[in-house]
């Protein structure tokens, strides 16, 4: 045993490595991102960035069927992308231990939505899940999940929330050195060919129904596993009101108990299915329980159902209405709820906070996306067009001062959204703005769909050779994969092969970019503009940037303080002071794009 300070994501990678994981596949998505890179650092582990989460899940499952322990890593939105495969692997089961890490982001602190993957993975796909309450537990649960998955032949999911992925703490861990095993693929078509075929031995039943029966029968075994699990436990104390902490909800509950100052009856629930025996033992004799879970009332509803079935009269409070239905829990929220519940009172409405000016996201100073956004905006403002947006650093172009993209949904939506607007009869130009990583993730099929359906749109690909938003992970358009050099797949070449008319421009040159976008707009059909420049922040560290750095300064004699540079450009290095633009030298990275933005020529 060894004690080390680790991030939650480091602890998960460590647990997987100790459990003998051999194949790890994922797509970058905060808060889970670091796990794939970290796994790749362990000897004998093959780790990869897949083009999207569905493919990562498929690669990991195939490895499990080949007798190698495997892990698929993604965030909650990514699990939606993988849902199609998820709804089949639950029926087939797996062979070697396999873990799905699906990290949730309560509060949507770095996401487009907040959602609870327990509903998709457990309630819908009926797979077992672990919900860690601490970094230590994330490590232990990862190891346990591999063992139990292999024993039950079912994928186990680990569902850390952001506060576990990105918390650091001391972790007591074991040794590496799991034995390697032969890579054997045993063909078993009855299990791994999911087709509507008739099974003779089950009286002519269709295979999907038979495998569904298998999955349902598994639940009893999984419940027994969770009943015996050390991750669920009871802390006794007198009182008629009990408190249930799930995952990080337990950590906040313990903190609230400390501040409250008196011992509370607490049930820690960290698994799905729930240990029904433990739950029933805990609630018998209580008048009410409050369930603290992130984010939906999943456990709360199961407990209500359980009490109904066992004819137990119990008030079950939680996320269905007693606590706020949206957003993260916190120790303070839990403390407030504990004290209100003990007094038999409703959860009090939080006091209205005082507004403190927000810090909205923007592109870094020196980022090529800012030039691209300015150029695209110039064209669109001229022709009354609409821009549909996608996920990536450029999506900050939707906010002040750019106010450019009109829609942002999920990975790859920009292209079908764009041509949908045209098909609805909109007669002005429509542009889809998408990043390179997202293009490979789920943009390719959208582009094929657009071309196949005879769309008339302009797709703008912001090609900066990295997935910058999550911390610079590579993708098929990058020249490396987990630090191994590879030949990049160039988005423009792919688009051309699909039949799109392809244009290219350098986004650091606003004039050229606007001209090329305008030229592409004038053509009919699906046009693709590839705006190519290396991500300044990533490649600048390696001494590779796509512009010649220059010192820029405001000529105060020429500047009339019109504020165009601030109002339309929004570079964080430029502010207005005493009626003149000021460029803060320590914040400026010398890209020089602002020079062309100032119509008076005051920036030199």
């Amino acid at each position, binding site marked *: 045993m060894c004690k080390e*300070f680790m991030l939650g994501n480091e602890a998960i990678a460590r647990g997987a490595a100790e459990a003998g994981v051999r194949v790890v596949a994922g797509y970058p998505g905060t808060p889970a991102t670091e796990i794939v890179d970290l796994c790749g650092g362990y000897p004998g582990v093959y780790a990869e960035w897949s083009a999207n989460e569905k493919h990562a899940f498929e690669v990991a499952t195939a490895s499990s069927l080949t007798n190698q322990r495997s892990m698929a890593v993604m965030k909650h939105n990514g699990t939606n992308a993988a849902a199609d495969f998820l709804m089949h692997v639950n029926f087939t089961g797996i062979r070697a231990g396999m873990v799905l890490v699906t990290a949730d982001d309560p509060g949507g*602190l*770095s996401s487009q939505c907040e959602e609870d993957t327990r509903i998709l993975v457990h309630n819908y796909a009926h797979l077992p899940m672990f919900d860690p*309450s*601490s*970094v230590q537990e994330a490590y232990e649960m990862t190891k346990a999940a591999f063992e139990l998955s292999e024993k039950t032949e079912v994928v186990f999911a680990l569902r850390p929330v952001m*506060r*576990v992925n*990105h*918390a*650091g*703490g*001391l972790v007591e861990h074991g040794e590496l050195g799991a034995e390697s095993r032969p890579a054997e693929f045993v063909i078993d078509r009855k299990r791994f060919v999911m087709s509507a075929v008739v099974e003779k031995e089950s009286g002519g039943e269709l295979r999907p129904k038979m495998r569904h029966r298998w999955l349902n029968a598994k639940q009893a075994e999984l419940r027994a596993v969770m009943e015996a699990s050390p991750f669920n436990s009871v802390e006794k104390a007198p009182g008629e009101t009990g408190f249930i902490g799930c995952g990080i909800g*337990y*950590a*906040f509950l*313990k*903190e*609230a108990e*400390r*501040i409250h100052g008196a011992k509370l009856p607490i049930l820690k629930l960290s698994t799905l299915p729930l240990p029904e025996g433990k739950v029933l033992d805990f609630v018998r004799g209580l008048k009410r329980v409050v369930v603290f879970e992130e984010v939906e009332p999943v456990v709360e509803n199961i407990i209500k159902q359980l009490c109904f079935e066992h004819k137990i009269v119990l008030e079950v409070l939680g996320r269905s209405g007693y606590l706020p239905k949206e957003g993260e829990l*916190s*120790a*303070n929220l839990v*403390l407030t709820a504990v004290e209100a519940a003990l007094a038999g009172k409703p959860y009090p409405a939080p006091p209205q906070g005082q507004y*403190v*000016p*927000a*810090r*909205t*996201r*923007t*592109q*870094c100073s020196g980022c090529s996306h800012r030039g691209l956004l300015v150029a695209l905006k110039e064209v669109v403002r001229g022709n009354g067009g609409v821009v549909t947006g996608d996920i990536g*650093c450029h999506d*900050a172009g939707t*906010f*002040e*001062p750019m106010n450019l993209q009109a829609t942002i949904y999920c990975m790859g939506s920009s292209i079908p959204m764009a041509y949908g607007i045209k098909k609805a009869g909109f007669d002005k130009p429509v542009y889809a703005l998408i990043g390179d990583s997202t293009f490979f993730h789920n943009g390719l099929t959208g582009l094929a769909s657009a071309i196949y359906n005879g769309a008339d749109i302009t797709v703008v690909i912001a090609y900066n050779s990295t997935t910058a*938003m999550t911390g610079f992970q590579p993708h098929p358009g990058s020249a490396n994969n987990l630090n191994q050099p590879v030949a990049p797949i160039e988005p423009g070449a792919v688009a051309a092969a699909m039949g799109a008319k392809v244009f290219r421009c350098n986004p650091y040159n606003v004039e050229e970019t606007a001209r090329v976008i305008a030229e592409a707009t004038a053509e009919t059909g699906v046009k693709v503009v590839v705006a190519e420049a290396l991500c300044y*922040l990533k490649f600048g560290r390696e001494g590779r940037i796509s512009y010649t750095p220059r010192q820029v300064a405001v000529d105060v004699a020429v500047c009339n303080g019109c504020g165009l540079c*601030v*109002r339309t450009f*929004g570079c*964080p290095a430029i*502010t*207005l002071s005493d009626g003149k633009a000021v460029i803060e030298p*320590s914040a400026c990275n010398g890209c020089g794009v602002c020079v062309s933005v100032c119509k008076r020529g005051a920036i030199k």
Partner: protein
Amino acid sequence: MKFDLVIAGVGGQGNILASQVVAKCAMDAGYNVVNTETKGAAQRGGSVLSHVRIADGEIFSPLVPAGQADVLLGFEPLEALRYIGLLSKKGTFIINTAPVPTILANLKVDEYPSTEQIVAVIREKGLAGHFLNATRAAKELGNVLLTNVVMLGAFTAVSNILPPDVVLKKLLTMVDEKFHADDSRAFAVGRGLIGKEG
């Protein structure tokens, strides 16, 4: 023993490095430590909040609960104001008074409060602490990026949880050798600012 520190700032100010120095020193001293950061696209100018929780027993929540922080280091005045509610009534703040304007304030969509307004709001809460201009001090030392080291030095002057020389030594192990002389000076300047300003 329980000690909670929060550091509020803006992406790029070296907030996370400062929190890691404190966390590592506390670990070396044999304490249990849990930390986390709350950051919204920090590289792109967002707000960054680091939590460092130190105790000689178990620590549950990685987040410092409201009203529980022993020290709040505000690397930027607006961010300090945003998170001042985390500070305990018995706690101490150290707030750098040099503002980093927000984009919306530049656009006149929001109004960035004046330093006087921020100071007044915080003083009104009856909290104790120090206002100082760490950014100016860092600039005078020749590099605005030394702001976090000035603040770290100031921290060791208000809290005796970790010996100053240990904190400085740990910091130096985490940065390139060519910065050691500047960092040592900035650290000393930060210690000196407590009592002198605010």
